[in-house]
């Protein structure tokens, strides 16, 4: 792109931005159909926007997100398993490197935190990390589904729902408990039960972190005046950062506690 073309491109962008900004001002600041407090409350509780799960039961949209994310990951993993992994070479290409890095990071996390017992832990933290990361990024796609009340709703991140976050927290706690049993038997169970607040803290940490991002995004999108340009930074930055940070935090905590409770006691 030469200098003249670049100048023309910048001028066009500026004109478009000015026009959209003026039209936003002239439109009177938005004609919100439901008040902001209701929107925010619904984003947290999902009391109204229920979605039908395969026509069987009404569920929160996050559950649909969860199954969609699993479907996407399944298709991706299947393609990779059939077409990519058999062609792995000793000197890895870019894609192979990404896959090896992803597996290697979680494997190392498990190995470093629980050196004596880490095979199952590595697989679990890999799953949890991938699920949290992809699930959070899934929010960016903005997939719209019909609600049972006849409206439509954008699918949120699976873990922005309290039920999804609780299931992840409880499952992680169960994994830690299994590590305690496998490593120390009954003593391991006691060690794990000592940290009974763990599933609650993990669940609510995850829920709170992802929900805060969702709420800020919801708030930004709610008003017309703030729904231009700003969401690009706010939504994308919040989503990507939460995807990375929460994936790291939960997997790290799980690996840490798993290693602690499954460590053979010194008197053995």
């Amino acid at each position: 792109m030469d200098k003249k073309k670049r100048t023309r491109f910048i001028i066009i962008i500026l004109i478009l931005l000015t026009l959209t900004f003026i039209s936003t001002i002239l439109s009177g600041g938005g004609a919100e159909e439901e008040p902001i407090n209701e929107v925010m409350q619904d984003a947290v509780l999902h009391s109204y926007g229920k979605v039908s799960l395969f026509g069987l039961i009404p569920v929160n949209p996050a559950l649909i997100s969860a199954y969609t994310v699993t479907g996407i990951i399944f298709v991706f993993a299947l393609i990779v398993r059939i077409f990519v992994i058999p062609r792995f070479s000793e000197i890895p290409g870019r894609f192979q490197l990404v896959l090896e890095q992803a597996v290697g990071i979680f494997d190392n996390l498990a190995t470093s935190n629980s050196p004596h017992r880490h095979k199952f832990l590595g697989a679990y933290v890999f799953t949890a990390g991938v699920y949290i990361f992809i699930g959070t990024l899934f929010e960016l796609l903005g997939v719209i589904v019909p609600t049972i009340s006849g409206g439509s709703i954008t699918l949120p991140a699976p873990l922005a729902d309290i039920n999804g976050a609780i299931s992840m927290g409880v499952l992680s706690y169960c994994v830690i408990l299994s590590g305690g049993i496998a490593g120390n038997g009954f003593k391991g169970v006691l060690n794990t039960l000592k940290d009974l607040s763990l599933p609650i803290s993990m669940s609510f940490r995850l829920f709170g972190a992802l929900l805060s991002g969702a709420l800020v995004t919801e708030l930004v999108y709610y008003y017309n005046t703030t729904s231009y340009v700003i969401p690009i930074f706010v939504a994308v930055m919040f989503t990507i950062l939460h995807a990375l940070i929460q994936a790291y935090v939960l997997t790290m905590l799980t690996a840490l506690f798993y290693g602690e409770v499954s460590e053979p006691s010194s008197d053995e």
Partner: protein
Amino acid sequence: MPLNIDWQQILLHMFNLILLFGILYILLYKPVRDYMAKREEEYKKREQQTKDALSDAEKLKDDYEKMLKDAEADMAAKRAEISAAAEADREQIISDAHSRAAKIVDEAREKALSEHDRLMARTQAEITDYVSKAAEKIVMQDDNLSDDFDSFFESAAQQKEAGNG
């Protein structure tokens, strides 16, 4: 339930997570980790082979150095042996040369003595000859002496004839 917590949905989420765990473990995690482990094993094997080869090379080097040292020691011993042999040969040669020289000197001495004797004899003969010639000349110069000689020779010839007759 407060916060719209629904146990059924929690269980559905868990089912989804366990399903995802199975999918990811079978399709991605295990194959990739196995491949990485296999490659690591291969690298370790190669590293071990390299170490072994290096160790063999070091051993071989030590052996060769030892052989070199042994060869040097052998060479030194041989050199000393050869040197001693050469010294003995030299002594022998010198001794032979001395004895030969002594023999030559003896022979020369004998030859010189013989020559000396021969020369002395010849000189004596020549002196005798000279003396006789000188005596003859002296005699010739004296007439009486010459008559005496003549009379001597004549009487000798007469005596010889008388003996024959």
